[in-house]
């Protein structure tokens, strides 16, 4: 009986010791952001916005002071209940289309947004048309006639 207890006790000690050895009960770090959901939305929106003073960086990743200020504005707008479109509108009204990394779809950018797919369709149609036309220009060689086939076999035998 005593042996059971002592081995049990030993097992418990061992377990505690190994737990402490592997990972002490450390305090979980607090997120930088005050409100993670707001921050998550901020990052998502800010990734599609341009840092006005950087050499091609997004508002989400830039460390510039203006970027901090603009992120603060966006955060306030999100907390104020604005949706993504309204946030973008706020910035575009002040900084112009330049601030959007995803250009709006409007007549000015139709060529940009629809161009590639239009080009793809034209290319696909053109490709098929070309192959067909090529086929007509060069029909597959006519099948051998009987006499020609016999001659071919004869030659092969030699």
């Amino acid at each position, binding site marked *: 009986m005593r042996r059971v207890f002592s081995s049990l006790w030993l097992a418990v000690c061992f377990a505690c010791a190994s*737990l402490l050895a*592997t*990972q002490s009960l*450390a*305090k*979980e*770090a*607090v*997120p*930088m*952001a005050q409100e993670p959901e707001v*921050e998550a939305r901020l990052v998502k929106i800010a*990734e*599609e916005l*341009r840092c006005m003073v*950087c*050499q*091609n*960086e*997004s508002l989400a*990743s830039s460390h510039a002071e203006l970027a901090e200020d603009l992120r603060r504005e966006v955060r306030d707008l999100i907390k104020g209940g604005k949706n993504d479109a309204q946030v973008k509108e706020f910035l575009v009204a002040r900084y*112009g*289309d*330049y*601030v*959007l*990394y*995803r*250009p709006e779809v409007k007549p*000015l*950018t139709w*060529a*940009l*947004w629809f*161009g*590639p*797919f239009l*080009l*793809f369709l034209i*290319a*696909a149609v053109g*490709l*098929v048309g070309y*192959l*067909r036309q*090529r*086929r007509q*220009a*060069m*029909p*597959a060689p006519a099948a051998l006639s009987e006499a020609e086939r016999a001659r071919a076999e004869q030659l092969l035998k030699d």
Partner: protein
Amino acid sequence: MIPELGHFALILAAVVALIQGVLPLAGTVRENLAWQALARPSAALQFGLVAVAFACLTSAFLANDFSVSYVAQHSNTLLPKPYQVAAVWGGHEGSLLLWVLLLALWSVSVAIFSRSLPLAMVARVLSVLGLISTGFLAFILTTSNPFERLLPAAPEGRDLNPLLQDPGLVIHPPMLYMGYVGMSVAFAFAIAALLSGRLDAAWARWSRPWTVIAWTFLTFGIGLGSWWAYYELGWGGWWFWDPVENASLMPWLVATALIHSLMVTEKRGSFKAWTVLLAIAAFSLSLLGTFLVRSGVLTSVHAFASDPSRGIFILIFLALVVGASLTLFAWRAPQVTLGGSMGLLSRESLLLSNSVILVVATAAVLLGTIYPLIIDALNLGKLSVGPPYFNLVFAPLMVPLLFIMIPGTVAHWREARLSDIVHELRFVGLLALALALLLPLALGAWSFGVVLGLFLGLWIALGTLQQVLFRVRKPGRIGASFWGMHLAHFGMAVLVIGITGVKSYEVERDVRMGIGEQVTIAPYSFKLVGLQDVKGPNYNAVRGEFDVFKDGQFLEKMYPEKRRYFSSAMPMTEAAIDSGFMRDLYVSLGESLGGTPAQWSVRVYYKPFVPWLWAGVLLMVAGGLLAALDRRYRRAVNKAAQPA
């Protein structure tokens, strides 16, 4: 003295390049064999002279000669020696000298490894390369001289941009430039073929290994750039669709199309005009990239300091080279013969589809890159085109391309039947689909994008494996190009799965941490156990010590740093990365937040599948090397070397 020697060598090199560019070509027109024979020696001499110039600039850096303006701008006595050498190409002037050196290297390689080619062909090819060299050397000598003196000499250099003080700088630009510049060889062969009027399967066979080697270097260079950005910039991104990145991707896409098109031209004599056009396009995009990066026309973190005169020179050069090539194309291409016949569904038509999709994708990237410029030029305002656009437009275009990769390798030449292809690939298709539908459940989140990405990657991987297995069972020698092709395709599959995985499953935590605190991204946790000050050769840093646990078990330590270089006000973050087979753990120190006890902002990332990105690129590089070194290319060389 040495800088002047280097400058003089460059001037001589320009003269020799001009001779190399004009006389052999004139020799082919006038049928003057002596002039044609000047091609090889002048290429060798030009290389020697440019190498001397390059050596002079390098020695100026190693000697800390701050009386040379370029050295003073990009180096420093405290800069470690390897970076002093790499700093040679750390700025505009020096990187152009590297360009010209590598162009001369490619030219002299063509001169050496072309014994089986007729002299007239060699003369034309080397002439074209010589003319391009002349243009670049003239550009350097008139607007971008790296040997310009700074008098009185600066007592100390400004130092190399801390972002560039990294092994990445030592290897990324040379590899990338080898690729960019290497496209000039395929271009030169194409122009030579147009000039001679001889556009045939032989031309395609000669061009192909050169194109594949250049493509391999370009793949490696782009991959290195991506990898470098990933670990250097501290926020774990690896592709931003920055204009300069796009400038390297566009030639790569067209070069891929070119390699596949050359295959058809070599085998069936078809698509000659298209292949020639692709060869012209690949190098034109290299030149266009040079323009975009150095003219100040587009904003980019990557761009060199610009100068309107440089922009004008490059634009004129670009206009002349490409304009002349396309005019020659328009003149000669109509006379090209059609080549073999092919069915609507055949290996040829699938390879042609590959070309077409890649060209459309290239056009899309080009459109997105220069659209802001076009709108501004039309006085319609300023707008930005960034990653959201490119991701939305490029990815869908890749889907059909990736899909037809496998039928393309299975289909018969000349005439293929859909039922045959479906029959051969039925197991692969079903297995890939099943795995693609099930794996996301195991990986964490299920979405259409993940399924599509996984399906395409598995489709290619399994399809490739199946074909390799079928082939090894058959008798007969298997050439290196077979292994190369499938290895490269398999690498593409790995890359696609990597991209899908990392985009869908990466996790980021941005926290404030004090010593003793931890952050968890299951099943990993990262505990900050210490912060210490460290001194580097030309910087001071704070180094964080993190204990990393997996499922409660100690895994290892990670040491991210925040550095302050003496020469720069901007602090630099050196992320700590632990790479495994399936994932990267990425820890980046932010700022000190003060307070007692001291707190720091820390970013921790769990990035699954990131190592697959680099593995995929390396597999493609290995595949390219194998394919280029196939014996049939070398056999021709050896045969010609034997006494007649």
